[in-house]
């Protein structure tokens, strides 16, 4: 066989400076974001929304996400918010769980048996989140902040953000506290500042390319606490909702442009 002669010198690699590394990683992220498979999951999410389930064998189509029963347009962009029927502030996922219980008659244990899925089989919450969030594209993020319980949840979320805890003494701010920092190659947004929170929050839920998985904000809170070496936060608990509410209020005003792509 004839070998091909290549001009090796043309392709000589050289050690990149730290600044180049950062720039190249940004270019990588941008190119990955341009081809997000996230929208592939909108269709199965819609099917799930309309599928009768549970002891009452009804769909979630009458679920009130805050804009009225069954109204999806803009609903995600206005969450978390206070719900009078539940007398608490809810994010999308805790609200969906509430509807699974009240409308479909499902038990909490059954509905939350598998809240985080896999690449092969995303969870109900993941598929529903992608579909419902997609119905808020272009709508400005404006979570509830007028009710006393909404203000209290925000304050709780803010305090949690700076609360140092766990086997490694971390708070959220240990990683997301100073500008211009990275973990490995991952740039760390300073999420208590609006200019950083806005683009990040506006792209959740998302498709995660490293694991080919759909991920939601409840998953994000869960996996951050896992890496903070704490016990596990309960799905949809006040703690997780408060943090999501604090971050979303910090991001308010940004037009929702997800579901996005993450590393």
């Amino acid at each position, binding site marked *: 066989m004839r070998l091909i002669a290549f001009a090796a010198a043309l392709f000589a690699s050289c050690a990149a400076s730290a600044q180049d590394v950062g720039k190249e990683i940004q270019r990588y992220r941008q190119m990955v974001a341009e081809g997000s498979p996230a929208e592939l999951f909108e269709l199965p999410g819609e099917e799930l929304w309309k599928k009768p389930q549970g002891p009452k064998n009804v769909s979630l189509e009458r679920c009130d996400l805050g804009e009225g029963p069954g109204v999806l347009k803009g609903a995600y962009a206005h969450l978390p918010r206070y719900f009078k029927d539940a007398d608490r502030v809810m994010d999308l996922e805790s609200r969906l769980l509430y509807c699974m219980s009240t409308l479909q008659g499902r038990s909490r244990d059954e509905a939350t048996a598998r809240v985080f899925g896999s690449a092969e089989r995303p969870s109900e919450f993941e598929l529903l989140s992608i579909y419902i969030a997609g119905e808020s594209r272009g709508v400005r993020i404006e979570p509830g902040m007028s009710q006393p319980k909404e203000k209290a949840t925000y304050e709780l979320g803010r305090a949690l953000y700076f609360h140092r805890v766990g*086997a490694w003494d971390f708070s959220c701010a240990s990683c997301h506290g100073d500008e211009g920092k990275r973990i490995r190659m991952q740039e760390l947004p300073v999420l208590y500042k609006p200019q950083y929170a806005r683009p990040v929050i506006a792209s959740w839920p998302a498709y995660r390319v490293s694991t080919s998985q759909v991920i939601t904000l409840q998953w994000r809170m869960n996996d951050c606490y896992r890496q903070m*070496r704490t016990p596990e936060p309960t799905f949809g608990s006040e703690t997780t909702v408060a943090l999501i509410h604090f971050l979303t209020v910090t991001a308010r005003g940004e037009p929702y442009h997800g579901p996005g792509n993450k590393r």
Partner: protein
Amino acid sequence: MRRTALALALLAPAVWADPTPQDIQRIMQRDFHPRGQATMERVVQDGVQRVCTETHDRPPPDLAKALEADQMKTIVYPEGSLMGDWRRGEAIAQGGRGLTWNDKPGDPAGGSCYNCHELSPRELSHGTIGPSLRRFGSARGSSSEVQRYVYGKVYNAKAYNVCSQMPRLGASGTLTSAQIKDLVALLLDPASPVNE
């Protein structure tokens, strides 16, 4: 830790009136559940965590000094040389596992060093939360005092800077004494890529 409690009593009303770290702790005890090796004691703050939360990581100098002295007492130095094997140290610096609810108890943990620090020039993927440690040894030598400092800093970073973001890798039971010695070698051995 009586000193800590006293200082807290003085500090508490001034900062974070609503909600307090005590409130947060109660809420976390309600909202979290144990899983694997991650048990519920981990949501109970110790004095260091409490003071750093209360003061937004800026404790008054006297209190900081007192707490650092307390933390210094936790450091257990092994007999003999503190220099292990830099090759094993490099693998420990790369690893990010250990102490989470899905890590198997007893499996060797990593130090997560590259998550926050630059070390070997061959590893481009390093974090920047902590300072660069490139040429750490070439700049300081590897005298027994320097070895003792590095060992102690990895064992309990809070003994040197009480509200440091660096975990107490020895005191928390993440790394063994032998692993910490390997990290000392990674930083100080003239043959280590860190000192290229």
